[in-house]
């Protein structure tokens, strides 16, 4: 592991009213890693994502990406710095076509101004053309090309999830955050998703942090896992360390589950 982590979180935390949703949260992710974040319902996992992406401003601590401080940046600024995400409950631009969903993510990479668009200057045409070509290329990778002009809301659930990942990738992140990408999928679909994640990671040389309750997926592809409970880290380590960690078993996995995962059976 290199010395300079891509993402560094130092005792970050946030309170809602009196509730300490996350506190004293520390995390280091290095370039190219695939890391899992697990924990019981309401442990604060999604809240961590919201801290990382600027949706919430941490009430304490520091977050930095490649040494640059992210605290206090608005979500769109964080995205431009190189973190993009998917959402636990799918958030596509429903009325927009599949193609336009991805084009929106390319937005900040394009340069043509409002004036050039209004007056249809050459830079508008070249800029739009480039966006369109790049987006289509991208959608090909995700096998969504046949649905370019379909409205996002009309896609089946599984494809919507895929489109969300594609869209997040189009924003050109260094670090990709996935929030329960396999929720609501059956084992077969989950399996396909695992392959997809492995593939894009390879292809785009990505660093990924993912939240998931499907232990088969988490244990199957993550290199390292952080475990959160009641807003606090209770463990981190390799999948094997985690599945045998008594604290994790008690708070999250349950006895049998831990055993069966040891045999890598999917219950």
């Amino acid at each position, binding site marked *: 592991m290199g010395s300079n982590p891509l993402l560094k979180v130092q005792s970050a935390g946030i309170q809602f009213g009196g509730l300490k949703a996350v506190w004293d949260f520390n995390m280091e992710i290095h370039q190219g890693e695939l890391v899992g974040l*697990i924990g019981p319902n309401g442990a604060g996992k999604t809240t961590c994502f919201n801290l990382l992406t600027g949706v919430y401003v941490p009430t304490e601590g520091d977050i930095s990406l490649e040494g640059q401080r992210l605290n206090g940046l608005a979500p769109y600024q964080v995205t431009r710095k190189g973190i993009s995400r998917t959402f636990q409950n799918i958030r596509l631009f429903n009325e927009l076509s599949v193609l336009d969903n991805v084009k929106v993510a390319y937005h900040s990479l394009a340069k043509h101004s409002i004036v050039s668009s209004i007056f249809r200057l050459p830079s508008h045409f070249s800029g739009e053309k480039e966006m369109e070509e790049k987006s289509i290329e991208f959608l090909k990778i995700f096998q969504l090309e046949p649905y370019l002009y379909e409205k996002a809301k009309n896609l*089946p659930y*599984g494809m919507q999830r895929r489109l969300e990942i594609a869209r997040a990738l189009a924003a050109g992140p260094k670090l990709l955050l996935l929030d329960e990408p396999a929720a609501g999928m*059956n084992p*077969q679909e989950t399996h396909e998703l695992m392959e997809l994640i492995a593939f894009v990671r390879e292809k785009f040389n990505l660093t990924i942090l993912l939240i998931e*309750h499907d232990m088969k997926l988490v244990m199957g592809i993550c290199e390292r896992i952080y475990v959160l409970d009641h807003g606090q880290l209770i463990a981190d380590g390799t999948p094997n360390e985690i599945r045998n960690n008594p604290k994790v078993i008690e708070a999250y996995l349950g006895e049998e589950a831990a055993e069966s995962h040891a045999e890598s059976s*999917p219950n």
Partner: protein
Amino acid sequence: MLKVHQIDVFYGNIQALKGVSLEVQEGEIVTLIGANGAGKSTLLKTLSGLLKPKKGTIQYLENSIAGKPAQSIVKAGISHVPEGRRVFANMTVEENLQLGAYLRKDLQGVKQDFERVYELFPRLLERKKQLSGTLSGGEQQMLAMGRAIMAKPKLLLLDEPSMGLAPLMVKTIFSIIEEINRAGTTILLVEQNAHMALSIANRAYVIETGSVVASGPAAELQASEQIKEAYLGGL
């Protein structure tokens, strides 16, 4: 107990169910599995009266309930725990449970059932006065089930009760489902977690793009190569 015969259901012009038939016997756990968008939730919504079938019949305890309004179906003893929990977020846990018993007149029985729910889900007793919107996902799922139990259903329709839950919680929920069943409630269970579902169910139906494509005893389906291939992650 429940006999669905050849129903067609539409969303506007989109046909979501095509000639679906199925049966549930008293005391059974029947599970319904299938890919995303296959029409599982649609079927449950039709049974509980949220949607009206365009064609076909639904017999429940010798009565036809197809197209009846939801509240009269609840009254007849069918309770539906919808996808995504749908608890009343700005009401307390207790109020949610009271709403579960909305139609009941037997105050004594209601009181007993309160106790029963709190016994099944001690967590809910702890959080009695908390607004349900602030509960964790698993707690909300317990509340949704508790709320359905309060209606004292003969038939309980469960739509993906394990979705988004931590492994430990999934286990708890499934054991509670079995417990409710043992206490005499018939259960129709929709699940993505097909392994778990098949392991507690008596019988199962597989539904694909709006039609039933396979059915049989749960154990048999679990063993079937085809089913494994398509729904159980090829293992």
